[in-house]
């Protein structure tokens, strides 16, 4: 059974990457959108562009993973293709894990391109590489799970896009991407702590500035917690929807 689940997961992810993710509009949107935002803020405050890199990476993973992830499942449910997967010999968590894996792979690929460009422009000295990649993977998992939850929580593709933006945009402005958390009012800091993006930006900042594991532990733990919670919430919601 486990072998069936793992095989199903792998091939679902592969199929999603081929069928939906690695398409030119998706790739260009995934890279250009975060760059455009960061550029807008950099023009306004050109002195401290380097400090925007963790936010740039976090935004790229957020939009790279969740943009398509948030609509793939609801789209497949609309056209009946999800039923094919539900009929296949694999369990529901494996099916959703396959969906997550596809979103994560795409998000990480796009982010690695953005990371490479950032490292060419800015110095990579002092970066804790293991922490950086762990933070990227955990961020991708959490955001992909968020996308999957959005996708199973609604019935229509446009509803998924609306809900995804309803969650992502407040998260983007409160998550420490453009404005450091410490400079926000306390009540906004409390709200910001409810978003996985906040922990992603902090963990990436710690990794890029060569911070210690102790500093990053809370952020990495929170990202892992969001990943698990959102994933099982998505499994539970989908199980209820299909019954």
């Amino acid at each position, binding site marked *: 059974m486990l072998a*069936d689940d793992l*095989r199903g997961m792998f091939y679902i992810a592969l199929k999603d990457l081929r069928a939906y993710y690695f398409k030119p509009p998706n790739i260009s949107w995934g890279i250009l959108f975060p760059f455009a935002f960061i550029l807008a803020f950099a023009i306004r405050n050109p002195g401290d562009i380097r400090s925007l890199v963790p936010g740039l990476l976090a935004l790229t993973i957020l939009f790279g993973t969740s943009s398509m992830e948030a609509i793939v499942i609801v789209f497949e449910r609309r056209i009946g293709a999800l*039923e*094919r997967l539900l009929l296949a*010999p694999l*369990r529901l968590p494996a099916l959703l894990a396959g969906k997550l894996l596809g979103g994560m792979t795409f998000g990480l690929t796009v982010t690695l391109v953005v990371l490479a460009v950032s490292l060419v422009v800015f110095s990579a000295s002092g970066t804790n590489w293991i922490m950086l990649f762990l933070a990227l993977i955990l961020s991708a998992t959490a955001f992909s799970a968020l996308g999957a939850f959005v996708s199973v929580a609604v019935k229509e593709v446009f509803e998924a896009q609306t809900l995804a933006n309803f969650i992502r945009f407040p998260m983007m402005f409160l998550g420490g991407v453009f404005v450091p958390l410490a400079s926000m009012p306390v009540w906004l800091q409390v709200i910001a702590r409810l978003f996985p993006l906040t922990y992603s930006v902090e963990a990436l900042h710690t990794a890029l500035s060569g911070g210690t594991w102790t500093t990053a532990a809370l952020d990495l733990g929170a990202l892992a917690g969001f990943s698990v919670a959102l994933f099982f919430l998505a499994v539970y919601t989908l199980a209820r929807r299909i019954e």
Partner: protein
Amino acid sequence: MTEAIQVEGLTKVFVPGKGRPPLRAVDEIDFTVRQGEVFGFLGPNGAGKTSTIRMLTGLSRPTSGTARLLGLDLDKDLPRIKKRIGVVPEASNLYDELTAFDNLVFSMQLYGVPRIERRPRAIALLARFRLGEKRDTPFAKLSRGMKRALTIAAALAHRPPLVFLDEPTTGLDVMSARNLRQMIAGLREEGVTVFLTTHYLEEAERLCDRVAIIVKGRIVALDTVAGLRSGAQRKTIVEVTLADADSQQEKKRIECEDGVESAVRRLLSETGGRHVLAIDTLHPSLEDVFVQLTGLSAEVMLAEKGAKGGSNAGG
């Protein structure tokens, strides 16, 4: 083991929500499907056909009752059952973005068909379903009939011994429907058990070894087509075609319980000097049986369905 499907007391109750009464979509049905037969499951819209298929294929949990498929318990062995069944839903649901070939390969990947077998199996299935030339065409660009054929091919890709076909020819043109029926008949020759739902009674009559008719969640008849016919109408019907001097034709029918001869005599006494062109003995069709049991005609049933398929049953 000679039963591919054994169902006992299978029930599905939907609870729609506050203020609305529960809906008994499937109500304690019992039936068996023998290995290697084509089993027709007929009924009007909302009768419980799709709910039954969804329960038997693991897409929906029964409220009560038991089912065994290929000797395995539906409740306990669902993953093993899923590996050994193929399902063709009413709507063709492969992936638009993938080619015909890739769709088949993906189906085989999901079901664990060994890598070395996938390519030749996909090519063989494309050839068998007359899609060889469309191998590299995306699913979205295939005609409706080709999409249907490919969806059936995908359901057979892992060589399941039991296949569920939900309205396989609905919406197809006459030739496509005819080709598909030949393919379904071919499955029986290979020993594959087929569970078929259809709105085309003529199709069921041609293809099915046995037929169950479900109405309002309950099975009201289950027999061979011949058995259903004989059970539905015990009286003899004789039809005489008459022509008058202007070659205007008229048909007269009469039911008679005491034999064909007396019926013919009675009809001939009513000819009124017209020529007798033909005398026929009529047997009830499956449609007659269906009308008798459900109170619906085939036309009404197709109209309910949105008459998606036109009149392809004649093909």
